[in-house]
């Protein structure tokens, strides 16, 4: 048989059809921009208030706070990977902390067991949200917002039923150490550790695990692909519904961890844990360059973003602004930080176009 077809295609040329630069220049990397901004702010705050470098009163608590909010950011990041949101991060953290507190209060379980129970509760709540979202197709914003509402009620009902007020009175052994100690308090002979709070490694481990998950594991990559194009993912054999559930479960689990870290920092498992998580949960990832559209995440960026917000907060606190100015400046600095990234982006695009 003969058919009219063109000549077989020439062998693929090694040179690309268009000279696209293979690597983005270093300065255009959003993470680098963040680091520069961060260093600039630290220098500025230190110049204005030398107390910014006070180890015990500023740097050590700052590290603890960053740990909490980096994990909060990661909890949001876990669902931003899908292009979805978790409006109930705070409440999942609170439920998880409640579970840990209850387990200790009633069963006297050790700290680590309590933590595991708490994380499991967080993960279950996340999975529940994911399940509703994936089975009904209702927008994640709506589902988690409604869940948030329901949990606000539930948490206080539970605390009233199981405690005298809004917190568990007792604390498992080790909580105080987790709160107060730094590695400098632990010595091997003469050598003591650095002045890093004990909660930091927990947050670092979480960041590492999440980074590993999205970069190297199949499940993590498939979650990202579901976020990038859910229809194509489904047609590529990815069980997209399961991935949605898993991403939300991860979000719940990380929210639980954040709740635990906050409880450790504040010294009690209380109903107010997570009340203030929602805003920072978005700021960390977004400042770090994660879009709300899904399909791509930056764990390092999230940690840097959380660091940036905490540094801003700490610096403004040291400057002793009154409430109205404090809020005003936080909002303005955030807007500037976000816009700087945009400016960088535009410049990078111009340069790329000219290349």
């Amino acid at each position, binding site marked *: 048989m003969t058919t009219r077809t063109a000549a077989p295609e020439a062998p693929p*040329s090694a040179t690309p059809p268009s000279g696209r630069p293979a690597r983005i220049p270093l300065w255009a990397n959003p993470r680098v921009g963040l680091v520069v901004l961060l260093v600039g702010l630290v220098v500025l705050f230190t110049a204005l208030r030398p107390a910014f470098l006070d180890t015990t009163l500023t740097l050590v608590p700052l590290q603890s706070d960053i740990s909490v909010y980096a994990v909060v950011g990661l909890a949001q990041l876990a669902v931003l990977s899908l292009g979805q949101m978790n409006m109930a991060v705070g409440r999942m953290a609170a439920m998880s902390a409640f579970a840990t507190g209850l387990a200790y209060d009633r069963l006297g379980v050790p700290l680590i067991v309590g933590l595991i129970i708490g994380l499991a509760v967080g993960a279950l709540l996340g999975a529940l949200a994911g399940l509703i979202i994936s089975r009904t197709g209702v927008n994640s914003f709506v589902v988690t917002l409604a869940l948030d509402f329901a949990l606000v009620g539930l948490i206080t009902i539970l605390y009233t039923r199981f405690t005298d007020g809004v917190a568990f009175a007792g604390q498992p052994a080790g909580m105080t150490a987790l709160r107060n100690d730094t590695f400098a308090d632990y010595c091997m002979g003469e050598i003591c550790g650095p002045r890093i709070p004990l909660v930091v490694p927990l947050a670092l481990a979480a960041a590492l695990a999440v980074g590993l998950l999205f970069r*190297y594991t199949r499940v993590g*990559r498939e979650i990202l692909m579901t976020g990038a194009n859910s229809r194509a993912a489904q047609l590529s*054999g990815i069980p997209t519904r399961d991935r949605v559930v898993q991403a939300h479960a991860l979000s719940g689990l990380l929210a639980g961890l954040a709740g635990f870290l906050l409880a450790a920092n504040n010294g009690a498992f209380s109903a107010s844990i997570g009340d203030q998580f929602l805003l920072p949960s978005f700021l960390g990832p977004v400042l770090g360059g994660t879009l709300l559209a899904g399909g791509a995440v930056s764990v390092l960026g999230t940690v840097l973003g959380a660091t940036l917000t905490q540094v801003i907060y700490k610096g403004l606190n040291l400057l002793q602004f009154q409430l109205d100015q404090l809020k005003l400046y936080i909002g303005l600095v955030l807007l500037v930080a976000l816009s700087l990234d945009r400016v960088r982006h535009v410049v990078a695009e111009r340069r790329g176009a000219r290349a």
Partner: protein
Amino acid sequence: MMLTAENLVKTFPGVRALDGATLRLASGSVHALLGENGAGKSTLVKILTGVYRPDGGRILLDDTELRLSGPLDAQRAGIGVVHQERNLIPAFSVAENIVLHHLPRRAGLVDRARMRTEARRCLDLLDLDLDPDRPVADLSVAQAQLVEIAKALSVDSRVLLLDEPTASLTGDEADRLYTIVRKLRDSGHAVVLVSHKLEEVFAVADTVTVLRDGRSVAEAEPLADHTQDQVVDLMVGRAYASVRLAERHVDPATEPALRLRDLSTARGHRDISLQVRPGEILGLYGLVGAGRSELAKALLGLDRITGGTVEVRGRPVRIRDVGEALRRYRIGYVPENRKEEGLFLEQPITRNIGVTVWRRLARAGLVTERAERRLVAEYTDRLGIRAASPRQLAGQLSGGNQQKVSLAKWLAARCEILIVDEPTVGIDVRTKAAFHQLIAELAESGLALLLISSDLPEIVTLADRIAVLNDFTLRGELTNDHDYGRMSQAIIRLIHAGPDGAGEERAA
């Protein structure tokens, strides 16, 4: 009237889409704009309609320079357009979509009566009997395409740009469109036609401009001076040679790899029986909307099967989702709509191909980028995917290369049964030929292929047997003897014969 675009240059990040392209239009003619995928045709159309601003060059309308700062400027200058991408607001009515760019207003409010009258007028031009109040979301793909054209006509235009207007139209509908195009030409309009369907182009166009890599290699030459082959040579930039697709022989006694027995689905398919053997290509032909894609999706568990059985290698199966189809039964599906269903446009090529094989690549649960890149390199080589790097985003590739990526993921997953849905829609002649060869080679290597296509020449070229589907029922099956004239007639007859007449047409 003359519309001239001179030396247009347009650069996207990393891509020079236009590099000194020139287009000259005279009123009263149909002008073909041809070129391979990525040659820059759509970019040119978008510059002429104010969607993009050129980085260099100028546009002249009768010797005065035209500065277009947005789509509205182009409309005011009398330039109407049907873009390659769909361009309708689903929730709005047909009428509102047609006149959206110049909603008739009265005291700041939309004048609905005038809107309807105006829309009616444009629909009448196309002999289209559509309720102007129907939401566009309810329309079929073809109807929506016709509404797009009506919308372009609603601009009081002297110039009409049509970027692949017939990609989703049936032959009849395309004919109707071309009748109108001729009418417009005769009344003094200038019409630009972008299409990969050269037969159609040669039937209606008077002059031709050919773009290659963003440059015009032929400028407004009379089409009558060229043969189709010459035009293809110009597009490709190289002498044209025909190739033979090797003859395939499949023993009819081989056990079918995939077999449907009296399959009915929730979508409305009734009693469909088909079979494909390893090494064989079964063509599934039908008009747009015949239910072929739906059939494929039902097979993959995306729609409910209500009756009959699916057998894979002789064993009845129940497939729940694509993952199961792939892993247990080695069935793959290359969807028709690559941008929405086949690809992850914002992801690198590596991930687009790797997505089906991570399970296999994982060591201790971890997939390394290196292993993935190695695997991807194998398939980019084998399919000749042209890309700057394996990290390039799929969305930055040309249509043909995108389609190859969409196919590569199934080859990487080592499929044995492959369903390929409209593989060459919107793909230029050269790439299309390469694709045909690739599909033939895949069959030779022992894959069982189900080729869904609305492109008659394509199906007659490739298929061993051709099943014809219309209105969700099987109208018959023909053995392909590769004689285009005879086969096409037989197929068209099958489509138009009622279901009752199907029996006698059914070939052995």
